[in-house]
């Protein structure tokens, strides 16, 4: 019997644990804390954080417990990540909850959503310079897209072995947007610029909203067919939303369906960060590059906005440029808050949503381009 006790003890976490598991468990706990206490992207940080706990319980191989063991439950649920199935489903839900009115009211703001994607490609160069393979570099660059599902989708297709670190980096920085962006925004804009008021957007007709997703889908996917899975579902969801008659489908897409996808995506991505595979020099580089790419993306958006002002009659508030990184809706919210520091009566939020959502489209296109150039 003692033998059995000892055998069993050798299978417990108290015997099998490794300092890297402990580190990851602490990180996971911090993620959960940030999500709950600081309300940073809770819908993602909490599942990912708890997933980190699940993934870093010290387990013995062979029983089929670990996410990397082919017959484990986690492995089956992880399938939706590795095959890039969850991200389009999440986009379907996002499409079903996104209101493109502000974008339709002032299309020129879409350019800001394009400019901010410069972060992706500059980071791509940086990653190459740090010695990553082109496919890995592309996946790292996409972190600058500030769009979790897009990053996971592209990485699943180009560099599956990096899903963990890239997803975690992307979501961490998306959560830290309120910390990362403001200093850059203050640095690159003058008080006078931050005080600029945007005029009320024009009223947008129901029919415009209805036609938009169809036009946007055809146009963007003709240009970048590889953006199909993401943009297709995003626009499909939006059609369901705007076409009243399909409200019940839109409702399900924006509740049960996206929630289920989010839960499973979050917890499995978190569980994929097993200490031994996650705590590597590559991950450190990825985090550094990720931070850089967020900075560059923000800066490009701001600067491009200032350049636009040289040509526009009615100036736009350059802070809006920072919302181009997407990270919906946090970066739009940051723009709003920074704007209000100067003038509490200046309501920038709804205007910031335009570059914000076009940033989503922008990074989906960028992902498509990178995918097709690397594959």
């Amino acid at each position: 019997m003692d033998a059995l006790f000892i055998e069993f003890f050798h299978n417990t976490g108290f015997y099998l644990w490794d300092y890297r598991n402990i580190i990851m468990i602490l990180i996971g706990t911090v993620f959960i804390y940030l999500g709950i206490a600081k309300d940073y992207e809770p819908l993602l940080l909490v599942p990912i954080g708890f997933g980190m706990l699940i993934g870093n319980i010290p387990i013995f191989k062979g029983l089929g417990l670990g996410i990397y063991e082919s017959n484990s439950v986690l492995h089956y649920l992880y399938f939706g990540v590795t095959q890039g199935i969850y991200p389009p489903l999440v986009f379907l839900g996002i499409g079903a909850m996104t209101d493109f009115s502000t974008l339709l009211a002032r299309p020129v703001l879409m350019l800001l959503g394009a400019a901010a994607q410069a972060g992706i490609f500059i980071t791509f160069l940086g990653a190459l310079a740090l010695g990553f393979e082109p496919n890995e570099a592309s996946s790292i660059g996409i972190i600058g897209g500030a769009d979790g599902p897009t990053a996971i989708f592209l990485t699943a297709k180009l560099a599956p072995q990096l899903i963990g670190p890239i997803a975690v980096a992307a979501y961490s920085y998306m959560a830290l947007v309120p910390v990362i962006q403001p200093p850059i925004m203050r640095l690159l804009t003058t008080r006078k610029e931050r005080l600029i008021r945007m005029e009320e957007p024009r009223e947008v007709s129901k029919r415009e909203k209805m036609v938009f997703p169809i036009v946007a889908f055809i146009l963007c996917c003709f240009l970048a067919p590889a953006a199909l899975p993401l943009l297709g579902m995003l626009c499909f969801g939006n059609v369901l939303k705007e076409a009243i008659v399909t409200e019940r489908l839109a409702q399900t897409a924006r509740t049960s369906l996206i929630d289920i996808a989010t839960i499973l995506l979050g917890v499995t991505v978190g569980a994929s960060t097993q200490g031994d595979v996650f705590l590597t020099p590559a991950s450190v580089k990825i985090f550094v590059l990720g931070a850089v790419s967020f900075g560059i993306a923000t800066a490009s958006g701001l600067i491009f906005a200032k350049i636009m002002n040289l040509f526009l009659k009615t100036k736009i508030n350059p802070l809006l440029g920072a919302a181009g990184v997407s990270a919906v809706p946090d970066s739009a919210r940051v723009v709003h808050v920074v704007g209000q520091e100067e003038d509490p009566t200046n309501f920038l939020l709804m205007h910031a949503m335009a570059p914000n959502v076009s940033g989503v489209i922008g990074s989906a296109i960028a992902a498509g381009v990178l995918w097709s150039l690397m594959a």
Partner: protein
Amino acid sequence: MYGIEAINANNGWAISVVGISIVFSGLVSLSLVISQLHKVLALYENPSKIKALFQGKKEEKKLEEDTEEVIDIVLTQSQKETFKQFALLVRTMEDHFSLPRLLHLAKISGLKDPYSNLNTLLKIKIIAPDSDGFFTWNKNRFDKAVN
């Protein structure tokens, strides 16, 4: 391989330039299309507006007529409950709605005994047929009946 060397070796510059240009051409062309969109749609929309206006008038007249009559039927609490749910459904439909569609919605939303209740609604004229095959909801009588 590291640094500039690695970038050149992997054709990084070209890829980046191509990439960002595609992103821009995509969003620029899209914004151009959108900016024209509402003008194109503008013409298409007016008729509908007029029609809506027209219908609005018709309905008022109907309401006045009804206010005279009285409702001589006693409703159970549960019927009233269900009627309220029907009212909500109708709110989600056009002013002149199709009865079968309403029934369909009612069943989908799991209202109880949709058939018999719908029948009652017709009997006590809360739902009344209009001239062109559709039906209208008589809020007036509905309030009387439910409260």
